[in-house]
C-alpha cells in the first residue's frame, strides 16, 4: 500500500471538485432537498398524529443515516464513473497504481464527498426543524462507520460491474444502492417485513444501524450488540467487495475488457 499514490488519487478528485463549482452545488443540493422534505413531513406528523411519529427526529434521523449510506456509495462509484467519462482509465491502469490503492483512493474521495455533501444539510436541520443528528451521541460514530463501510463495499461490487460492462452499466451505478432501501429498515422496523424477508434484511449491516437508531430514539437504549454485528458484517462485505473487484480486474485483463474501459 503506497500512500503517495492514494493521496494522488484523492488529489485528482479534489482538484476536480475545486474546478467544478456545479459539482459541489449538486453534491449539497440533493441531501438538502431530501432532508427539507422529510423535515416538513415530520412537522406535519407531529401536529396531527400520535404514537411513534411524535418521537422527535425518528424520520429525520433515518433520512440522515440513509444519506450517509447512499453518499458513501455514490462517492465511490461516481468517482469511478468520472474516469470513464474522462477516458483516463488507460493511463491509470498502466501507472504503478495498484487496484487496491485505486479502491482506497476512491474511499478517501467518498469520505470527503460525503462530508461536503451532508454537513450543510445536517447543520441546516438545527435552525430549520430543531433537530440535530448529533443528539444520537457517541453511537453516531459507529453508525457512520458501519454505513460508510457498507456503502464502500457495495461500491466495489458496482465498480466491478462497470469494469465488466462499461458505461452501459452507468444507470445501475447510480441506482443499485436504492435496491436495498425497502429491506434495510430505513423508515420502518425489520419486523414489519414478511417473515421470509427478515433474514435477508438482517444480513445487511445497515439494518443494524436503523434498528439501533430507533432503539435510541424510542427506548433510549444503545444496542451495542447491533453495532458489533453491523461492524462484523461490514468486514465480510468489504472482504467480498475487494475479492470481487480483484477477480473482475483479473478477468478483464484476460478478456481485454480493460481496453474497452480505457
Amino acid at each position: 500500500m503506497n500512500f503517495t499514490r492514494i493521496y494522488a488519487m484523492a488529489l485528482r478528485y479534489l482538484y476536480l471538485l475545486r474546478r467544478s463549482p456545479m459539482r459541489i452545488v449538486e453534491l449539497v443540493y440533493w441531501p438538502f432537498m431530501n432532508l427539507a422534505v422529510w423535515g416538513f413531513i415530520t412537522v406535519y406528523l407531529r401536529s396531527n398524529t400520535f404514537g411513534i411519529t411524535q418521537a422527535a427526529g425518528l424520520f429525520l434521523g433515518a433520512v440522515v443515516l440513509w444519506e450517509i449510506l447512499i453518499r458513501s456509495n455514490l462517492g465511490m462509484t461516481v468517482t469511478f464513473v468520472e474516469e470513464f467519462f474522462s477516458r483516463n482509465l488507460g493511463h491509470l491502469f498502466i501507472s504503478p497504481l495498484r487496484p487496491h490503492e485505486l479502491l482506497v483512493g476512491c474511499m478517501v474521495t467518498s469520505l470527503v464527498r460525503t462530508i461536503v455533501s451532508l454537513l450543510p444539510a445536517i447543520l441546516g436541520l438545527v435552525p430549520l426543524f430543531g433537530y440535530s443528528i448529533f443528539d444520537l451521541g457517541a453511537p453516531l460514530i459507529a453508525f457512520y462507520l458501519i454505513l460508510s463501510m457498507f456503502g464502500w463495499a457495495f461500491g466495489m461490487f458496482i465498480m466491478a460491474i462497470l469494469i465488466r460492462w462499461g458505461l452501459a452499466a452507468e444507470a445501475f451505478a447510480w441506482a443499485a444502492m436504492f435496491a436495498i432501501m425497502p429491506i434495510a429498515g430505513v423508515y420502518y422496523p425489520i419486523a414489519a417485513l414478511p417473515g421470509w424477508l427478515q433474514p435477508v434484511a438482517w444480513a445487511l449491516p445497515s439494518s443494524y444501524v436503523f434498528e439501533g437508531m430507533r432503539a435510541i430514539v424510542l427506548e433510549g437504549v444503545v444496542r451495542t450488540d447491533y453495532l458489533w454485528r453491523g461492524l462484523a458484517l461490514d468486514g465480510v462485505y468489504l472482504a467480498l467487495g475487494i475479492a470481487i473487484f480483484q477477480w473482475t480486474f483479473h478477468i478483464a485483463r484476460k478478456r481485454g475488457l480493460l481496453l474497452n474501459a480505457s
Partner: protein
Amino acid sequence: MPLDATVPALQARGLTKHFDSVPAVNGISFTVPQGGIVALLGGNGAGKTTTISMLLGLLLPTSGEARVLDHDMATDRFSALPFMNFSSPYVDLPGELTVTENLKVYGRLYGVAALSARIEELAALLQLNEVLKRRVRELSAGQKTRVALAKALINSPRVLVLDEPTASLDPDTGDWVRGVLSNYARTSGAAIFFASHNMLEVERMCDELLIMKAGKIHDQGAPKDLIQKYGRDSLEDVFLHIARGGDEAGQ
C-alpha cells in the same frame, strides 16, 4: 533500480492472444534493446493494439510472454510500471484539471522526486509554460499531444510505449514531436516502442520496424534494408505491397 545494460527493454516470446479462439496475435517474438527505437506497423486488425496492450500488462496473453526490463507483464507488471510510460491520442487526461494539476497527480502516482522541478523542466522542453494553468479540455490537439507527452515523460521512463504519437497533428507539430522523442531516446538511453501509420515518421525515427499482418510478424528490419529487400522506393510502398498480399522482392 540498477539495471544490467544487456537486459532488453522489451521482449516478446511466442506472444499469443486468442479472443474466443480467434487469434489476434499469433506467436510473435521480438526484442527491443535499451536505447532502441522500434516501430510497429500493420493495417487495421493486424494485432498492433493487442500486442501493445500485452506489453503494457493491460491484457493477459493466451500463451507466451511479454517482458519489460525482464519483468513478466502478466505476473510481475508492478515491478516494471514505475520505469515505463505510455501515450496515445485515444486515451485522454482528465479534461477538467489544469495541465499542472494533471502532471502533479501523475507525478505522484509515479513517485517522482522533486516533482515541481520536473514539471518546470518538462514545461520548458515541451513549450507548455503558457498553458500550465489552463484546463486540458480547453487546449488544441497539438497542445494536448504535448501535455500527453509531458505526462509520458514525467517519470523519466526507461521504456516509452506510444500509440500513433503524431496522429491528428499538423506536419510542423508532428515533426517537432518526433524531434523531441528522438532526442529523449538519444540523451536518456530510453527505449521507444511505437505503433504508427505514418511511414515518414517510421523512416525518420526508428532503428528497426516490425510489420504485422494477421497477428504475425510478417517481416522486420531497418527501414532502408526493408525498402531494398522489397525493391521499392519508399516504406509506404513496402507497406502497401505487404498489405495487398505481396511477398519479398516484389513477388
